[in-house]
């Protein structure tokens, strides 16, 4: 039983830099996952614009009929300023690196897992001299540690 279906990492400009599937049926091909990533990137930005209150960072949790999508965004991204001349207002939008997991509805502790994955990313990707920023992640150590983290999470879920 897979609690986590898949994991995506999107860079600041909406490009998919990491995608891993953990057993969803009818898995996506590369083109589809790239499209989904860039679509999510723009949806995330639009959700910030539609906020009734200022200071919105974008979608954190999307609840669909058959899955939950948890999204974590690093705060190190670009801040785009949008000027609306008619209303003379400025909105700021944050576009950082986004991490999101697709999991079974109601799966708990996903925020913690995403933060942990972010830590792994800062350790094993950003500190790797052979990684080029914003490019697809191909780091063996990241893969190994990520697999461990997801497995640990699965064991914790089964134990409950």
């Amino acid at each position, binding site marked *: 039983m897979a609690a986590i279906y898949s994991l995506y990492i999107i860079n600041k400009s909406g490009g998919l830099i990491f995608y891993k599937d953990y057993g969803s049926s009818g898995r996506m091909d590369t083109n589809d996952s790239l499209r989904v990533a860039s679509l999510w990137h723009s949806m995330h930005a639009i959700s910030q614009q539609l906020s009734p209150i200022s200071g919105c960072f974008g979608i954190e949790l999307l609840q669909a009929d058959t899955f939950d999508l948890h999204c974590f965004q690093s705060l190190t991204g670009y801040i785009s300023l949008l000027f609306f001349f008619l209303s003379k207002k400025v909105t700021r939008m944050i576009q950082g690196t986004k991490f999101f997991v697709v999991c079974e509805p109601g799966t708990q502790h996903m925020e913690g897992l995403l933060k942990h994955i972010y830590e792994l990313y800062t*350790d*094993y990707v950003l*500190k*790797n*001299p*052979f990684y080029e920023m914003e490019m697809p992640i*191909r*780091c*063996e*150590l*990241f893969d*190994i540690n990520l697999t461990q983290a997801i497995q640990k999470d699965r064991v914790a879920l089964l134990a409950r």
Partner: protein
Amino acid sequence: MIGVGKIKQYSNVLDKPLSKGKQEVSLSAFAFLFSELVQYNQTQVDNIAELERRLEDAGYAVGARVLELLCHRDKGNRRETRLLGILSFVHSTVWKVLFGKVADSLEKGTEHEDEYMISEKELLVNRFISIPKDMGTFNCGAFVAGIVRGVLDGAGFPAVVTAHFVPVEGQQRPRTTILIKFAEEVLRREARLG
């Protein structure tokens, strides 16, 4: 040194106590600096052998300085003159100062008389580094190999030092072995000393 906050500031460096005290450098800070070092050197070279050599050279400078410091600090300005002595000095004293622990193992090469190996399950400089597939057997441990060469050279034991990945059974990650091949003169001298 990083961690200055806790240490008393001496206006004159000579007043400072000799012992190391507890000074630790943030691992992240080191990892980022080392990453930049590798990235900078990568822009300066055309091939991997060249990159390895440059990292080794950078390490050599560290090794030469570390030897001076440790001989002064721990040995009362005396240095090791015997082969095994200097090897265990590298394996324990130098390793402890640089990486906070003694190296995992020190072995004599089985095939050649003049070869010694220092092995680390997870070398500190390699902690966060994944080597891309197209770089083959390149190992950032070349920097540490350089340090070892610097220490040995400074102490009068010229040697060729290289870093290699060695797969370990039952482990996902290979360990790093620092291979030390001493110059002929060193072994001859050692034989004379008996």
